[in-house]
């Protein structure tokens, strides 16, 4: 009874089996797919060699098409149409994954392979002062300094604002105001970085008539950072069990002390993670820096006065020079930037894993 009911359409077509019920339909053995894959690679290589296709990509494409077609045909003839469709879907999903991994892996590989040779102690500790675009040498010290200062300034503005907003949304906020803030924080996450830059440009530089500075860039970065901090902190505060709040309030602790001494410390791991992910995100922003910090080949340690540089801006400038020497510097700086962002990410996720269970107990 169990085998006959569901796949009725195909059971009916195999007339002679009516007498004894087949509990299992024939399946393709595991090695058949491997054999098909090998065969398709062979066909792809063969066709490629015979037709003299120069790109290996075309060989692979032919092999993949042959594999998909052959799998579908074989499965349809042995296992039935429904299972053939199932196999087709599985192959396509795997294909999606591989297709997406190729450019992403290539991106990381290119940056590392072309960038690492250019990274040296000299590169990290010297500025571009007096180095012309076609010359070798020069470094990113001024850019690293600028990035670190701008990111720190931005977080000084964004972290308190973000934390307090999240506290409001979770602990106090009710009604229309809280809903409006939630909605606009979400919308704010999607503001293009260049628009944040234009806003600070129109307010700070064009209207209030301040000059280009690291601080102007930091304000734009803060606008980009706040919504990320709010969202992640909000999620973490929601995980803090209510029993903790109730226990503290029941002992007569005022609400603000409960939040500061009980709620926030409980969620601090997750909050730190969110903040560091936000830092990693804004450290790579270029667009507002172009508009507000302007770029500088010399070391300027004062973020409140005069143009500075930053790592992403440095990459963009060096790319713009268009010489081989400048491209080498751009790749090296990109490798440093990726390393910086990845380290921030890994540390953040490490903290998340280390501190994670404290909220859910």
């Amino acid at each position, binding site marked *: 009874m169990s085998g006959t009911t569901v796949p009725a359409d195909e059971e009916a077509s195999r007339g002679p089996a009516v007498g004894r019920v087949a509990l299992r339909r024939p399946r393709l053995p595991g090695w058949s797919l491997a054999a098909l894959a090998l065969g398709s690679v062979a066909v792809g290589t063969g066709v490629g060699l015979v037709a003299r296709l120069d790109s290996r990509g075309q060989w692979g494409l032919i092999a993949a098409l042959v594999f998909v077609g052959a799998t579908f045909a074989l499965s349809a003839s042995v296992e039935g149409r429904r299972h053939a469709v199932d196999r087709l879907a599985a192959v396509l999903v795997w294909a*999606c994954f591989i297709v997406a991994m190729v450019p992403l892996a290539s*991106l990381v590989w290119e940056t590392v392979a072309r960038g690492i040779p250019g990274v040296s102690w000299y590169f990290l500790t010297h500025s571009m002062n007096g180095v012309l675009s076609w010359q070798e040498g020069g470094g990113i010290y001024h850019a690293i300094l600028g990035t670190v200062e701008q990111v720190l300034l931005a977080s000084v503005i964004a972290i308190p604002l973000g934390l307090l907003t999240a506290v409001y949304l979770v602990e106090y906020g009710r009604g229309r*105001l809280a809903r409006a803030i939630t909605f606009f924080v979400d919308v704010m996450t999607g503001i293009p970085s260049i628009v944040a830059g234009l806003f600070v440009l129109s307010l700070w530089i064009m209207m209030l008539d301040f000059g280009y500075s690291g601080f102007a860039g930091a304000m734009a970065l803060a606008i980009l950072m706040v919504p990320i901090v709010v969202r992640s902190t909000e999620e973490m505060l929601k995980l803090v069990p209510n029993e903790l*709040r109730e226990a503290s*309030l029941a002992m007569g602790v*005022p609400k*603000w002390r409960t939040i500061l001494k009980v709620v926030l410390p409980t969620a601090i791991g997750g909050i730190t993670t969110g903040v560091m992910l936000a830092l990693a995100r804004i450290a790579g922003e270029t*667009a507002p820096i172009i508009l507000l910090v302007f770029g500088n080949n010399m070391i300027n340690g004062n973020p409140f006065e005069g143009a500075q540089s930053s790592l992403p801006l440095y990459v963009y400038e060096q*790319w713009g020079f268009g010489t081989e020497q400048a491209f080498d510097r751009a790749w090296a700086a990109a490798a440093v930037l990726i390393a910086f962002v990845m380290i921030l990410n890994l540390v953040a996720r490490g903290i998340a894993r280390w501190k994670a269970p404290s909220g859910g107990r």
Partner: protein
Amino acid sequence: MSSPSAPPPTPSPPSPMKEAGARSTTRLGDRIFSGLSKGSGIALLVIMAAIAVFLAIRAGIAIAADEGNFLTTFEWDANADPPRFGIAVLLFGTVVSSVIAMVLAVPVAVGIALFISHYAPRRLATPLAYVVDLLAAVPSIVYGLWGALYLVPRMTGPFQWLDDVLGWTGVFAYDGTPARSLMTVGLLLAVMILPIITSVTREVFLQTPKANQEAALALGATRWEVIRMTVLPFGRSGVISASMLGLGRALGETMAVATVLSPSFLINASLLESGGGTFAQNIASQFKEAGSMGRDALIASGLVLFLLTLLVNGAARLIIARRKEYSGANA
């Protein structure tokens, strides 16, 4: 006096307010703290409003001085004495490159999300999800550098092939110049928005009720039928909103477009040949040469971009908000 209304422990709302004077010290702390947190929430709203207002003021100055039609002029001479500029080309380039990116990225992202949630071996799935999240953090300028120096030279072959096969349509005509075109930009944007669409979509797929999937399996459905009957219908609005978040990213992306595209103020019928521009790219490339009027003009185009992304993101959030089960925490 909103302080005594704690979120869950609300059994005693109005009564303590009567004796407010008795314990004024703690009340003061509460009032300051709740005022601070409420104030920063309001500050965010003010910032959002200020962005719109200040951009609108400068844009108003620029549009009033514009000799051409702001919406339909195919020129960008904002620094000339009677300034003439219009956003037609930028709007076209922005929308076209983003649409190309969506068409390429969404199906692949759904595939990867399904791969991670339902196909990959469990031991592979967790690190994969992790890697996808890490890739979302790669700065856009690095994508831009990779696109300009690695991707562009390698697109000549495929573009030539597209021209051979589909060149007669005009849309895919190709003249053999370096492939710094809207199509390449769209492809690069697709790669850039893959991780974000994937991670949001994956979260939704993982929330498909187990009972539905097991019921389908118990009826003898194959894995694909389980996905088609339970996972995809359940995750549909999640996929839509994830795509719109990706679209918002693609619309506002600056650096990757500025490095790859070879811009011009002509709309080229062929997507494979260089030309066109996007809002963000135009702002980044023109800024250094812009005078006072030029900046106002760029801000005016930035305002259009702001409204465009506001629309797209707002719509995405409304779709998400309708399903409360899903929180877009890491979006």
